């Protein structure tokens, strides 16, 4: 009924899909599985019409199609529940359920017909939604789980023949998941083809008939789930073990530089950690489980709501990012474009912006000579390939731009370096160079906390890895224990265990 053939997609230098394929039949629930960055979400976006593939083709009912917008995709009978919710918080439940398919004539809404359709769906979702949600409730006031259900209801009201559920259960509790699965089974009876994307292994096993496993944007296998064991799935996701990457001996010293106890903040639920000088601590787990929030909170860029941060034996009160930077904290953010740099300004200005205060004379005025020599030193230290210090950062490749961001923090001589997915979208060569920089910094005694969506990267770099789930540390791997397979399985199996606890 739906087939994806050899689809490829690049975002700039990053390959999201490189020849992914699968086919699913009417009346089938087909799972899409893969570790972080395997390209699952990109496939869904292509099917939903919000992203166009560079190569390959889509086939629906044996005909080649090319949806160019969500509307065209809907016309083909494809309904997509996105991982990123598309409910409108400022509209009420009924308006959201009907959005885009409001019944009416000559541009005027038929309010009674609309109310009937919305109420029918609302009753269907009622057991999971709770008693207090009516058609007039503002969606922005609902819990994430309830919003997710409204999103699902909205797509179901379009009566899709092909339904995509992209991490649709991420914010649902067990009873809500049960209701969704009942609905999915009914749809299967009616001959609807359901594509189910989830990182929860147990859910895939519960609901799906077959599953396609993707890795690094490629098709790995399509399996019948009736005769596949969970550990086989994990093995397929991780792939054959590569030749052991050279692991550098730890530069860890005895001095505890940073101690965090029971830290609470938006997205962070009680994290404790002790970081030594020269130590590299990795933050692992599925993406978006609070890793970035933890780093931002330690850096003072997100408000801490509970817990303590102790730096070099001194307990810190509330502080802002600017003070943290002066104390010796550095944050290399994950979103290069928006948080890390002023892309149109010169490389030199970008390099010097965070450490300006060190080179100002009598509180104002910047010595251009000192600024230039400091910038030159950083460029040499990191082997950044550039034309001139006066070129804009946007003229650099992704890898070199990322090195500029790392470099600008080095100029402020940091003690604790927080790296938030530093090699996202960086080519392999630059990755290796950034690893080298990180190791050098650790050898010089810096404490490094690194969040990465790339499990291989964590395995190569970290002395210790904390696996996060829903803002809390659920597993800790140390030294030899750290390998990709353990990282993936602890992230996945933990999520399964957490579900069972919620339901039990």
């Amino acid at each position, binding site marked *: 009924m739906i087939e994806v053939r050899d689809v490829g997609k690049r975002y700039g230098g990053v390959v999201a899909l490189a020849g992914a394929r699968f086919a699913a039949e009417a009346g089938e629930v087909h799972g899409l599985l893969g570790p972080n960055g395997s390209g699952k979400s990109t496939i869904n976006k292509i099917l*939903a019409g*919000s992203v166009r593939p560079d190569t390959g083709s889509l086939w629906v009912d044996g005909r080649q199609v090319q949806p160019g*917008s*969500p*509307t065209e995709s*809907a016309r083909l009978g494809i309904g*997509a529940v*996105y991982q990123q*919710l*598309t*409910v*409108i*918080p*400022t*509209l009420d439940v009924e*308006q959201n359920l009907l*959005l*885009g*398919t*409001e019944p*009416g004539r000559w*541009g*005027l*809404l038929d*309010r009674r017909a609309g109310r009937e359709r919305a109420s029918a769906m609302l009753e269907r979702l009622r057991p999971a939604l709770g008693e207090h949600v009516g058609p007039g409730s503002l969606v922005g006031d609902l819990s994430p789980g309830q919003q997710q259900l409204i999103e699902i209801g*909205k797509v179901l009201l*379009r009566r899709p023949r092909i339904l995509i559920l992209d991490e649709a259960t991420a914010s649902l509790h067990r009873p809500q998941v049960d209701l969704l699965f009942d609905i999915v089974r009914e749809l299967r009876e009616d001959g609807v083809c359901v594509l189910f994307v989830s990182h929860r292994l147990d859910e895939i096993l519960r609901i799906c008939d077959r599953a396609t496993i993707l890795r690094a944007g490629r098709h790995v296998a399509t399996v019948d789930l009736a005769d596949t064991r969970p550990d086989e799935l994990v093995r397929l996701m991780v792939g054959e073990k590569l030749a052991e990457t050279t692991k550098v001996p730890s530069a860890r010293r005895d001095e505890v530089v940073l101690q965090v106890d029971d830290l609470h903040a938006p997205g962070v639920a009680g994290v404790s950690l002790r970081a030594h000088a020269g130590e590299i601590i990795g933050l692992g787990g599925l993406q978006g489980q609070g890793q970035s929030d933890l780093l931002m909170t330690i*850096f*003072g*860029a997100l408000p801490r709501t509970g817990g303590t941060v102790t730096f070099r034996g001194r307990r810190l009160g509330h502080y*802002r*990012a*600017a003070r943290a930077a002066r104390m010796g904290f550095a*944050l290399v*953010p994950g979103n290069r474009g928006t*948080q*890390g740099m002023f892309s149109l300004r010169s490389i030199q200005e970008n390099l010097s912006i965070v450490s300006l205060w060190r080179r100002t004379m009598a509180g104002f005025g910047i010595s251009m000579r000192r600024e230039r020599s400091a910038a030159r030193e950083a460029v040499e230290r990191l082997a950044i390939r550039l034309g001139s210090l006066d070129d804009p950062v946007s003229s650099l490749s992704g890898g070199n731009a990322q090195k500029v961001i790392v470099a600008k923090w080095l100029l402020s001589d940091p003690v604790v370096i927080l790296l938030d997915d530093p090699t996202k979208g960086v080519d392999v060569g630059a990755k290796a160079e950034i690893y080298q920089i990180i190791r050098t910094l650790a050898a010089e005694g810096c404490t490094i906390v690194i969040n990465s969506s790339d499990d291989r990267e964590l395995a190569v770099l970290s002395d210790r890895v904390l696996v996060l789930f829903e803002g809390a540390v659920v597993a800790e791997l140390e030294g030899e224990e750290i390998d990709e397979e353990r990282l993936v399985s602890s992230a996945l199996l933990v999520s399964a265990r957490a579900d069972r606890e919620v339901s039990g």
Partner: protein
Amino acid sequence: MTVRTDAGDALRRLTTTHLPSWMPWLLLLVAVALSATLRDNFFSQYSISSTFATFVPLVLVAVGQAIVIIGGGLDLSIGAVAALSSVVAITVMGGDDGRVLLGVLAALATGMACGAVNGLIVAGLRLQPLITTFATASVFGGVTLWVLPTPGGRVPGMITGTFRLAIVGIPVTVWLVLLVAAAWFLLKRTRLMRHIYAMGGDPAAAYASLVPVRRSQALSYVLAGAFAGLAGLAILANSGSGDPFIGGAMALDSVAAVVIGGIALRGGIGSPLGAIGGAMVLSLASSILFFVGVPSTYRPLAEGLVVIAALALSALSDRRKT
């Protein structure tokens, strides 16, 4: 970097916050009470009629502005569009009662055409509404001077006369404001308006939810243009002659009315009814200032302060909620 995030958050907070929906009506009550104490015959039929006569143009542009802002846009050219519509209408009518209908249609068509220009540039070329409408305001202003270089012309007696009438004891100008409110109740029931609200709430989510975002965006400017065209007619009815310079302050006034009316500048939240209230508050405030003896040169200053006060108040009331 973090400084930028903080500033971004502050800006977002400031633009998504909005005054509670009862606020314009409370302010209106205060303004009416003040006006009544300052002026003896405030509640006489003549006074009400002429007070509402000053309301009507601003009420119309405020509703137009409200629709655009709810959709997540901004129309700084709305005053210029009203002015252009008024000079086109007065030129078409030439003081002849028999051509009033033609004049009305000309004003509407001019307004909608200008709105279409804005809409096509903003939605089609995806340029920033702020810059776009700032620029088109100049263009429309230039065309206005080309159509009518100096103040003058005669408005047909039928229009000015009707404006001073009363129907079943209620002045026509009051009826007109009620009519605008009624028009909103009809508009609210259109699919377009629903989509404009959705688009203002979250444009990316609306696009993914099958809302024809670009078309709705363009049409929101056309709607605003239509209201501006009607405002142009109201200006004529009120002043009795044409004035190419009349639209100057209306754009800021309309934004002020929208803010006072409890509409979020970020879009998605609020009702044009509030903007109607806001427009009346603003008009009354301006006449109060006149009666207290504040020279008219200081009025823009006072109005600017009112806008800032309204924004600050909305930010405060929102912070208390969370």
